[in-house]
């Protein structure tokens, strides 16, 4: 019942919502970023971060630090928080929380499969996987030779299994196939998540459909840009777009036939929310597009916290933390490689 969540939401969700809002208060602020950007070495960064919520996770790291350690520890904190929330959650929130990790699962699957294709060590690949997207038999992925095997051996046991129905072919795995698989999986995942949120109803449905629509549209744009100049046919491209979102269905028709970035831009500028994103870019530029999209996403995610009694805050919090970790990674890379002039290129301020 829309508008009546306030009556019952707190019975099961109140505690966790309080927790997640508390966590959100611990996100780094613009002042923190300013200080971090002035750091000379990674030890400086550690010193600054030790005054934030990352303190306990970094304090036992011996110097000299590496970028990977910082990122690893920060991710560990996110994972700990996520696990804590998942432990406390009841249905349907627990399912909702699990949905959040499926994206990472898809990425991990793709990472392992691509890695094995290029004869990389499985253990090494496993270390690179995002800890949120781990499942039991993930290492076994290396055994599979083609999609069918992949599905039959491993993925049938995972929550990703239903998403595979569209991409079971007996073709051998190659880079192109894997990329298509990733996008097909993602499409199915987003649609499923969208459906799930609609089923939950209320403010959750409203806010999540907005956030997921943005995600779907962004993926559509990215797919289009990345597939320009490849052998992917228009129909195949069209098939990779998720069947919801602001661009669905007419925008998709236009995107499907785009041949260069300016055509994409032309198609997107018909949609007011995206007009502002593209108006920041000069013609022919696609480098800054990612950042522009991230900024827009962060803005939307922050707005999710303005309303109470819905699950969108959990999604938003996880995304914001991930963005923060990306920021930290970028800053620490810049600091480590003495490229401080480029620090602001990719950092997205959250507050």
């Amino acid at each position, binding site marked *: 019942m829309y508008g009546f969540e306030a009556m019952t939401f707190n019975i099961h969700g109140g505690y966790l919502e309080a927790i997640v809002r508390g966590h959100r208060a611990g996100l780094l602020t613009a002042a923190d970023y300013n*200080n971090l950007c*002035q*750091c*000379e070495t990674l*030890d*400086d960064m550690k*010193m*600054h971060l*030790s*005054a934030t919520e990352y303190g306990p996770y970094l*304090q*036992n*790291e*011996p*110097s000299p630090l590496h970028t990977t350690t910082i990122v690893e520890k920060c991710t560990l904190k996110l994972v700990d928080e996520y696990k804590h929330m998942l432990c406390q959650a009841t249905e349907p929130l627990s399912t909702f929380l699990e949905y959040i990790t499926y994206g990472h699962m898809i990425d991990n699957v793709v990472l392992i499969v691509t890695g094995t294709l290029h004869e990389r060590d*499985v253990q090494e690949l496993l270390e690179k996987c995002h800890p949120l997207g781990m499942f*039991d*038999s993930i*290492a*076994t*992925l*290396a*055994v599979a030779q083609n999609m069918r095997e992949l599905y*039959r*051996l*491993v993925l049938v*046991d995972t929550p990703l299994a239903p998403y595979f129905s569209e991409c079971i072919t007996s073709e051998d795995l190659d880079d192109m196939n894997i990329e298509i698989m990733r996008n097909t999986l993602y499409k199915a995942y987003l649609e499923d998540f969208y459906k799930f949120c609609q089923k939950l109803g209320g403010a959750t449905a409203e806010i999540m459909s907005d956030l997921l629509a943005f995600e779907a549209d962004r993926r559509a744009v990215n797919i289009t840009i990345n597939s320009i100049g490849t052998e992917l046919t228009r129909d195949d491209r069209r098939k990779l777009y998720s069947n919801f979102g602001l661009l669905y269905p007419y925008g998709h028709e236009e995107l499907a036939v785009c041949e260069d970035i300016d055509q994409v831009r032309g198609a997107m500028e018909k949609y007011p929310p995206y007009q502002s994103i593209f108006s920041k870019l000069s013609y022919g530029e696609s480098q800054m597009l990612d950042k522009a999209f991230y900024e827009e996403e962060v803005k939307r995610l922050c707005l999710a916290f303005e309303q109470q009694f819905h699950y969108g805050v959990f999604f938003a919090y996880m995304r914001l933390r991930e963005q923060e970790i990306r920021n930290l990674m970028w800053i620490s890379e810049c600091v480590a490689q003495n490229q401080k002039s480029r620090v602001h290129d990719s950092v997205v301020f959250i507050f």
Partner: protein
Amino acid sequence: MGDTRGGCCPPMDLFRSETMQLVQLIIPMESARLTVYYLGKLGLLQFKDLNSDKSPFQRTYAGQIKKCGEMARTLRFFKEQMLKAGVSPSAKSVEETEIDVDDLEVKLAELEAELTEMNANGEKLQRSYNELVEYKIVLRKAGDFFPSAQHSATARQREMELNQMVEESIETPLLQEQGTSTDLSKQVKLGFVTGLVSRGKSMAFERILFRATRGNVFLEQVPIEAPITDPVSGEKMEKNVFMVFYSGERAKNKILKICDAFGANRYPFAEDCGKQALMISEVSGKISELKSTIDAGLLHRDHLLRTISDQFEQWNLKVKKEKSIHHTLNMLSLDVTKKCLVAEAWSPVFATKQIQDVLQRASVDSNSQVGAIFQVLHTRESPPTYFRTNKFTSAFQEIVDAYGVAKYQEANPGVYTIVTFPFLFAVMFGDWGHGICLLLATLFFIIREKKLSSQKLGDITEMTFGGRYVIMMMSLFSIYTGFIYNECFSVAFDLFAPSAYACRDLSCRDAYSIGLIKVRDTYPFGVDPAWHGTRSELPFLNSLKMKMSILLGVAQMNLGILLSYSNATFFGNSLNIWFQFIPQMIFLNSLFGYLSLLIIVKWCTGSQADLYHIMIYMFLSPTDELGDNQLFPYQKTVQLVLLLLALVSVPWMLLPKPFLLKKRHENRHQGQSYTQVQGTDDALSEAKHDSHGHGHEEFEFSEVFVHQLIHTIEFVLGAVSNTASYLRLWALSLAHSQLSIVFYEKVLLLAWGYNNMVILVVGIIIFIFATVGVLLIMETLSAFLHALRLHWVEFQNKFYEGDGYKFYPFSFILIDDEDY
């Protein structure tokens, strides 16, 4: 502010906080560290952060802090290692040998390197040891399995062959036939893999194997009873020995990959029995060899850890001190010449001499050519509040601080709290039996004070321990009030003299006090035991306790108002005396002071007058005759006068003060503009100073008036509701005595009445638990909270501002508790 105090009253140092001063220290760079070190030992300076705009790593001593952080990390690493090895850090060695920080850093780094190397070696050995242990288990289990499997397999094969020969019909599955036929022809090529897989994963392992090879494997698993250590992770886990039989190279690759993916350790295994025995003996030999090496390594490591543990606490303290010194140094601003540091700090005036001595000593010890400069700054900023307390008074001071830290040099209610708090508690907890129990418990804490204060206690114990002297006072007072109420576990004793009353005849047995006659002098102390158990006991005690509560309450509130007078004279605020203190005094005492007087008169004269009636009709119809309720002559006139006084004092409180403030402001304002027109330098500077001094020149009359209105209403209503609030003294005391009567009569006496040993023992046990749980713990807690409320609200709202901030000196004694 401190020097402008009026000379009319004694300084009352006890309840004013220490006079503070803002001092500036100019310390030469070379002696800075030593100076701060000595100052930290002294612990009487609160440094102000002069670099608050700089981020932590931009400050002067960021490098040193980083170093200290690194050392602290190493120490944490040692601690963790010691915890794992079961070596506890030795008790604090108090004597402090001077170690140089740089030496310590080098030493710690060396030790850490040594320890990590040892750990790495040990781990390697441990790993191969665990692997060998696993191997041995595999050899055993698989060795058991092989002959039996072969046996059953041959038996089954024979059977199958027989079957084939007997009935080769259409129903015989083709595949099976094929399978057996290949089996027969290529039996040699059937390979196998043996190893260990953790039990939790074994099901998934089997499933994946089956799927990957399309069922063309034969898997046998044998659980191992005891959990074994996994070589890779080093954790104990339950495992299964598995054997996989397969045919073909592709299947082998797949199986190997799956094994890797599941973290299953594979071990080579020979089919031949003779070889197996050989391998087992070989592995056992290696195991014992490794074991002794590992033991030697562990011994060595233990030795190292023990040497570390001897000095651990000392190092830890040293590092903490060093870190705090540099944190403090970071708060100082660097002089333009970069040769000296400038510090600003609050210090109590009495410490001036000590600080100067310390500065002197530091400059001598560091061979600095220039001494540090010490000078007092004048400031308008409000200094921090600092009370010198000892272990007895600190708990009481904390009760006050929990409400709010006193404004600088404002009257400190903590001094009175030492007596009034336990006393009000005891009024609610009057029972000398319970008081003695409480006293014994707190004496236990006080006697073992030294031992307990050095160790970590649980949350609740810690709190009780911190308040041990408060509890001691509370218990002493409750023994005292217990004697007055004449109650010991709700039983009355005639300790001081026999009861003054005796029965007139035999008919007074049924607990009526009316049948009693006075035979001796009045009972010398407290309530006569004759009241106990009579029907009129409750009305008598209620009347006594209720009146007593009002007397205590009015007395304490008067004390509060008197303290506001002392504050007003101290800060030279005559407005507050004339338009706040005096009308408040008049208002409270003309109503409730009068009531208290009536109570005392009634007690002294034994009159039967109805005090409720007097009080109520004093308002409703002040001109009516009092009749029976008259206690003294001219009572009506007195009441009329008091009522008028009370009525007058309300506008007296409300109106003059805001108008006078407004007038005063206007006067000052005029004067200012007047001098500015004159334009002399002198006047200008004075005006400047003046405006600087009273920074809040904006005068909003409506705001001040509303504020005063609120204060007045609060006081007038508060006088009634606060007096009523003191009745909780009576209510809780009643509840306490009734509860203890219930436990005594309904549990102990009831059990006694059965004349049965078992019931008696059970009854005594229940009585003890009820007394301890409900009366000693819960009742103590509730009486404590009510006493707390009476102090915080009813007493302190009469005078206490409580908007100061605490003096928090840089001191090494304090850093010991905190972890940063």
